[in-house]
């Protein structure tokens, strides 16, 4: 039961990207990063080999949340911020589905922050794609909980004064069992992270840095350069180019590679502290990849097991005897 997809029936024959493309016209702005993610997902899904009808995408509201319309799977475009709770009900009642949530930084972290946190702590078997463009796209450009402080937007003409969330830190603080970060423009990396996320049993959170050319262009310009990112690989030293990540007093920092003792990335460490420290890394390089990937019982598996145990130990309930109860009497 360790794969997130182990109960999902397989298609049994090869699939292609086109089968996963719906007949709906894609309506994002030209150049929007969402296109790249859509292409990656449409390319990745066939490789899972699942029966297409056993895949369900649920989104909230936002530009990114239009995603399900463009995939020829089952899809629900729900209401703002609530997709994780809807997905929870679906995942608990349908072990045979591969359940995906598509959400934005406003949808997931502003109005929907609580549902996200609770999904992560419960570890419901679903994969959450958090399109982080650090802005509210659909409502035309207000700042979001991940916007850079000082950001001038429609709702902050004098600059935002909110400290931003770091979605990876937040997820780790919320007991997440799988947390990753990737970038819209790096198709190969995105694909590999999505595959791992889909296969993880429990809630996987994938933060995707996504460019919004209209309202927050080039927010991730740095992360689109090879020098801007630091790839995390489980079991490997954490280095990039001439730089290494080293530890001192519980804090991680970048140091010139030469002579440094880079830490070894352990995504599977039971204690999330090191992953958390990585999420706080400062100095101009953004770690991408899988921060944490640990096995923990999935809520939905346990919920179904309780039902199964009850049935096997007490027998499938008999309605008549339930209604009668222990204290009934009869009149004639």
């Amino acid at each position, binding site marked *: 039961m360790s794969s997130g997809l182990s109960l999902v029936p397989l298609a049994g024959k090869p699939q292609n990207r086109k089968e996963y493309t*719906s007949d*709906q016209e894609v309506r994002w702005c030209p150049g929007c990063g969402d296109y790249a993610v859509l292409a990656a997902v449409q390319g990745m899904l066939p490789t899972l080999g699942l*029966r*297409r*009808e*056993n*895949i*369900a995408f*649920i989104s909230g*509201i936002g530009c990114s949340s239009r995603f*399900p*319309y463009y995939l*020829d*799977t*089952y*899809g*629900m*475009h*729900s*209401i703002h911020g*609530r997709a994780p*709770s*809807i*997905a*929870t*009900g*679906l*995942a*608990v*009642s*349908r072990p*045979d*589905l591969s359940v995906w949530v598509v959400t934005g930084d406003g949808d997931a972290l502003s109005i929907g922050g*609580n*549902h996200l946190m*609770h999904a992560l702590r419960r570890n419901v078997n679903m994969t959450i794609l958090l399109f982080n463009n650090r802005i509210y796209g659909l409502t035309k450009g207000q700042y979001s909980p991940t916007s850079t402080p000082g950001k001038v937007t429609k709702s902050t003409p004098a600059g935002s004064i909110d400290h931003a969330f770091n979605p990876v830190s937040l997820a780790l603080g919320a007991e997440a069992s799988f947390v990753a970060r990737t970038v819209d423009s790096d198709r190969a990396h995105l694909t590999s992270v999505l595959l791992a996320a889909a296969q993880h049993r429990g809630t996987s959170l994938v933060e995707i840095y996504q460019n919004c050319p209209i309202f927050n262009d080039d927010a991730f310009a740095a992360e689109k350069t090879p020098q801007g990112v630091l790839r995390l690989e489980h079991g490997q030293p954490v280095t990039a180019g001439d730089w290494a990540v080293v530890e001192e007093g519980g804090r991680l920092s970048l140091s010139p590679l030469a002579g440094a003792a880079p830490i070894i990335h352990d995504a599977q460490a039971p204690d999330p502290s090191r992953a958390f420290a990585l999420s706080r890394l400062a100095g101009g390089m953004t770690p991408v990849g899988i921060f944490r990937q640990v096995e923990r019982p999935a809520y939905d598996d346990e*919920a*179904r097991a*309780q*039902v199964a*145990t*009850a*049935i096997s*130990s*007490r*027998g*499938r*309930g008999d*309605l*008549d005897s*339930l*209604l*009668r*109860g222990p*204290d*009934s*009497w*009869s*009149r*004639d």
Partner: protein
Amino acid sequence: MTATVLRTLDRVVIRFAGDSGDGMQLTGDRFAAGTAVSGNDLSTLPNFPAEIRAPAGTLSGVSSFQLHFADHDVLTPGDAPDVLVAMNPAALRANLRDLAAGGTVIVDTHDFTKRNLVKAGYPADPLADGSLDGFTVHRADLTALTVAAVDEFGLSRKDASRAKNMFTLGLLSWMYGRPAEPTLDYLSKRFAAKPALRDANRAAFTAGWNYGETTEAFAVRYEIPPAPAPAGRYRTITGNLALAYGIVAAGDRSGLPVFLGSYPITPASDVLHELAKLKHFDVTTFQAEDEIAGIGAALGAAWGGALGVTTTSGPGLALKGEAIGLATMLELPLLICDIQRGGPSTGLPTKTEQADLLQAMFGRNGEAPVPVLAARSPGDCFDTAVEAVRIAVTYRTPVLLLSDGYIANGAEPWAVPSAASLPVISPDFATGPNEGDTFLPYLREPDTLARPWAVPGTPGLEHRIGGIEKADRTGDISYDPANHDKMVRLRQAKIDGIAVPPTFVDDPGSSDLLVIGWGSTYGPIGAAIRQARAEGLKVAQAHLRYLNPLPADLGELLRRYPRVLLPEMNLGYGYGGQLALLLRSKFLVDVQSHTQVNGQPFAVHDLVEVIRTQVKGDR
């Protein structure tokens, strides 16, 4: 054994009152169980403070349980108790004013100390100063008697004196001829794991019984002959339990697994608690992080083909409005239960009210009609739940079921239905294309206007749904003006077209007044009408289960009577009462409202007075 007189009564109302910690709810529950077994009809009214354990000995800490039982059918827990059992001064003070003239008071004198009298706000000892003149008073140090009776079991003083509720129950059971066995059995089961407590409580009960039989304090025993009732199997049931069972029954009869998404809130939590015990009926309960997640998860499960249910009370329903709107757009079956409590805002959580009807009808953005059904009595919660699910599944729509604190916690004997007698509910999932080779997720059944329920996992029916306006038939996103207008009207027509049975009117003939009601006022209204008729007044009664859509014959019915009276436990936002607002608007009939919003069910005598005025008064 002293010679006691056996007197036969047709009805008795007893109220047990004590501190929150005194176990009055349990005492009442067990007395009711014994009463039910004795074949009396009965109705109960628990009443407890919002605090978990309000300060001992104070008025705010008083918890009570009232029980009305009779040799005929009983409609309410009774206006005024004939017997008051008061375990301390505060319980006496808080309840005495309700006692019927000439009633009986049984007092545990143990706590009538100066300190406790002050706590209860008594300037002098009411047992000594003549306050109780006019009542039949029995005083005894029930606590001390209990402690003595359980001495041998080595309990702490605290645990020993706690058994006084069982002593009291024993005494009352003796007095009213309730059988001892069920309670003794119950205690054996309940304290199976704690033998000392088990034996002590059984001993206390028996000691109470013997105390009645042995001392000369109680000169009279009472007998209340069984009430006639149709043959069959009976049990007592509270509204919340009946609601939980109705949901399970609907799951059973539809073959759908039940998924409850809920967040605890008084007085709805017990439905969650009861369903959580029934996993072997393929029931999954999910305690969500809030009410929005509760309905969200239920909706997700419904999409997946489960019977999605969410339960809450008023403040929680307020939070679910947006999601109910989504469910309306998605046109998926969903059961939403609101166990109403005193409002607005946090209001009076442990008190009853029927002030959420307009919220249930209109509490969301845009035109988002949903069927609304209301249960009238504890047992009726069962039938209403089954019917609500039938509508939800048949018409692919969220359905709102209204109950309230009064019937949720109140109990009555209930004729247990057989599973086979319940309606079969057919989910009728979509399995293939419905228009030539293609599948149109918003193509409707011509008679019900229901759309297909095509669950994920069904090959070939992949489609997308959502809260943006959908194109007719295809379900694609559509911003087309004409389509929007059409869809708004279609969704309304679907709800308006739900087949609702004609209204049952109880009219002995040529009545001048029709009293109409909904929900938990059924009992008090029925009792009041019975009394009014006994006085010779001509009064008809109709009680509505279907509040949206309303029965098709209702307009004609209302117009048939010169006067229509509608008592409601709400104020109707200044429009009369909440249902009155709707009926007046729909039928342009001058429905007269009688409203009471004090957190209590109607007193029968008040209603009788209102009926008298309506029948006799000029308008």
